[in-house]
């Protein structure tokens, strides 16, 4: 959370963040209580039900949420954002940055009895890179990895096609978790039903559209360095339920039907804060902030003046305050506040409607039609804003309506189009948008390379492209390339700062807030925490008070 402020203030902000990280571990209020073993915890998720429990396949957030309970990664991060050992105990990068050697933890086995060793890691890399696996997120994260080789039983070497300073960040993500090579040899359908890992729990049963039952792995030996205890988990069983309706989900938590919920809505958070029965964890997702991106590749946002008019003419703070009841903090950064490299500049977003109108006039949008919208050469100042009903929460959709209404005052005709997920991606692929909100979760500043590199304008074979603002800048591209190859953390930090500065000052993006990720849980639950990597919940340290 860095701002262009004196260094002292910067440090204070960083310290505040660390404190926030501490409150992100549950049960702190009763930290003196002795953990109790046993019991069943019911977790209700509002995210979509995964179609496959192996996060190598496809690779989305719902998969990450649940797989955090039964799969583990080579490395993790602590609440300061530093990479820490997990299944790998040490690592070394070659001088040319083209090869990484990892030393693996000894004495770890998968829950099917297979030993965790270098061959297992190699099998996992091959699994993710195999087109038949149909991996998207993991595949992208390993783009620069040519191959992995087992040097000996406990040592594995990754050979890269070009240096990748984000490799450790990538490997800390659940989409590159390590699974049993024996289990991976089964058919994909079977592996999707019951992936096998080294985690504190294992998948016992998956009843579609209802729940996944996870049971304790009593032989568990491999917690990450920042876990609160060692040995097997306290809970004997987790029932992982799918409750898509947010009101029903909160009602179920209130009635004690479930113990933990995710995707808690702002009004629930406020209500829960008044309840002595409930506690909250605020764990923003890493990667990009939640933001509106303006499509700079076509009219009217190909004109910087028009972009600037929109971004400095539409006030979002009052709406964020009232719709989120103060649970979401306004962001002025491209990156999530949990990212150490996040660069923030509130001064760019000061509201000045008079100036915004002047800018629109300078851009030639001087006419007015009968509905009061601006026109230029008889064409209305219309901007299309496709919204995915599956991705936006009600408060956010209302905020978009307010933005629409605010922009109307400037003369913009904002067309909000509510689409289902398939049609929404379709609209993006066909460039039928001027504004879009597309959340992107990834560990580390490497997300900038995905979102703002001009190469990300070229669509993937499926039509997907990540650079929705269509920032096409040689300078940004070369800075990103430099950062990717830069081994020094401080120098990398500078390079990422420059990139963010260029994008923010080009008025391509209107940051709103962090990607909201709130958990609510009953006071009987202790030791719940959100992983500092992608903010998924870890139930390893959790226990239930009898």
């Amino acid at each position: 959370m860095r701002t262009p402020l004196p260094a002292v203030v910067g440090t204070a902000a960083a310290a505040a963040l660390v404190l926030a990280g501490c409150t992100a571990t549950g049960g702190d209020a009763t930290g003196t209580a002795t953990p109790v073993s046993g019991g069943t915890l019911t977790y209700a998720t509002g995210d979509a039900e995964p179609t496959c429990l192996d996060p190598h396949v496809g690779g989305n957030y719902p998969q990450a949420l649940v797989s955090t309970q039964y799969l583990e990664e080579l490395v993790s991060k602590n609440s300061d954002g530093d990479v820490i050992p997990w299944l790998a105990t040490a690592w070394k990068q070659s001088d040319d940055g083209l090869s990484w050697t990892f030393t693996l933890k000894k004495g770890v086995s998968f829950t099917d009895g297979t030993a965790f060793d270098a061959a297992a890691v190699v099998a996992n890399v091959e699994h993710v890179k195999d087109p038949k696996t149909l991996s998207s997120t993991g595949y992208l994260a390993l783009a620069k990895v040519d191959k992995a080789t087992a040097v000996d039983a406990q040592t594995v070497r990754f050979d890269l096609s070009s240096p990748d300073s984000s490799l450790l960040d990538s490997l800390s993500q659940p989409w590159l978790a390590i699974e049993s090579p024996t289990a991976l040899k089964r058919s994909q359908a079977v592996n999707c039903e019951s992936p096998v890992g080294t985690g504190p729990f294992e998948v016992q049963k998956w009843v579609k559209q209802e729940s996944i039952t996870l049971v304790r792995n009593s032989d568990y030996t491999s917690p990450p360095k920042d876990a609160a205890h060692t040995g097997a988990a306290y809970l004997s069983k987790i029932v992982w339920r799918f409750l898509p309706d947010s009101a029903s989900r909160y009602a179920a938590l209130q009635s004690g039907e479930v113990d933990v919920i995710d995707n808690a809505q702002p009004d629930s958070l406020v209500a829960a804060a008044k309840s002595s029965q409930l506690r909250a964890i605020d764990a923003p997702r890493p990667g990009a902030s939640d933001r509106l991106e303006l499509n700079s590749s076509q009219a009217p946002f190909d004109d910087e003046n028009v972009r600037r008019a929109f971004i400095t003419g539409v006030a979002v703070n009052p709406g964020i305050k009232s719709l989120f009841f103060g649970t979401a903090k306004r962001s002025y950064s491209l990156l999530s506040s949990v990212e150490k490299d996040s660069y923030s500049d509130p001064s760019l977003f000061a509201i000045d409607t008079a100036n915004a109108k002047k800018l629109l006039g300078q851009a030639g949008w001087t006419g007015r039609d009968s509905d009061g919208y601006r026109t230029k050469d008889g064409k209305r100042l219309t901007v299309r804003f496709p919204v995915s009903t599956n991705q936006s929460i009600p408060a956010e959709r209302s905020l978009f309506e307010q933005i629409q209404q605010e922009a109307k005052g400037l003369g913009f005709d904002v067309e909000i189009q509510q689409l289902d997920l398939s049609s929404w991606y379709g609209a993006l692929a066909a460039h039928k948008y001027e504004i879009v909100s597309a959340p992107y979760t990834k560990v580390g500043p490497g997300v900038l390379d995905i979102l703002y590199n001009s190469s990300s304008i070229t669509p993937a074979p499926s039509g997907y492209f990540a650079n929705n603002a269509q920032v096409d800048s040689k300078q940004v591209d070369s800075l990103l390339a430099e950062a990717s190859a830069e081994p020094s953390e401080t120098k990398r930090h500078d390079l990422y700062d420059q990139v963010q500065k260029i994008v923010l000052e080009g008025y391509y993006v209107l940051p709103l807030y962090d990607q909201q990720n709130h958990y609510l849980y009953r006071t009987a639950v202790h030791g719940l925490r959100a992983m500092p990597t992608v903010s998924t919940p870890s139930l390893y340290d959790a226990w239930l008070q009898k």
Partner: protein
Amino acid sequence: MPAVRWVGSRVVGAVVVLWAVATLIFFAIRLVPGDPAEAILGGPGSQASQASLDLVRREYGLDRPLLVQYLDQLGRLATGHLGESYSLKQPVAAVLAAQVPPTLTLAALSLVAAWLLAIGVAWWSSGSGRVANAVASGLEVVASAVPHFLLGSVLIVVLSTSLGLLPPVSTGTASGIVLPVITLAIPVAGFLGQVTRDSLLDAAAAPFALTARARGESRSGVFWRHLLRHAALPGLALSGWAFGSLLSGAIVVESLFARPGLGRTLLDAVTLRDIPLVTGVALVSALAYVLVVALGDLAERLVDPRGGRA
């Protein structure tokens, strides 16, 4: 042999209906924007590689002409193969086997509850004068005008959050199904009640009912033995409609109460363009509809005091 002919025509009709449903769904979903290959590759917006896309299109035959795909699909369906769900990567038959029972339970219980409510209100108001009749009639009209999702949300807040009487989500226990059933049953009960009441009033004024009362039979005796048989007829004729309405309502109720079932499966399958799964669900609900109509027809023949349809 009228019975054989009856069964024969029903079977032929059912086959035609199923074929038409399969055809309609296939072309409708393929013409909708959205790539089925993405459903297979982990959902829309996947960043799948060209290699993966090619592989999937080849493996699932999505690269062939649409007509060939259609004939292939029809051939498979004809031999009883529903195929594999794109998004769930499971045989459609297995998905249906898991999802049909919860929806069927919900729909059947709701239909029973709706009938009980409708008859109960009819019974209560039949002998209680004009005011009771007007109140009952008003209740029925309002019940039939309430959207499921509004009713369900209000019931959750009142019965569950405020009073703590019932669990707000389906838990797999017996009490978990109460709220969904009530939510689904009330609007249908409103319709059935309206129809039943009208015929009940007709029947009550009919000579046979008056004769029965004159013979000294009790009010309830007349109600249960004579009136209801007449009154239930138009309602039974509506059962096919009611069942279809329950299936549509199930989509909403299952999302609201987080119940597994066909409704939610269908909603997700349409969103993901999962053709085999949409087809499977549509075929099952069409089959169920055909069966319910046939059973309703049969029940009508049995209940009708005239011993057959005019």
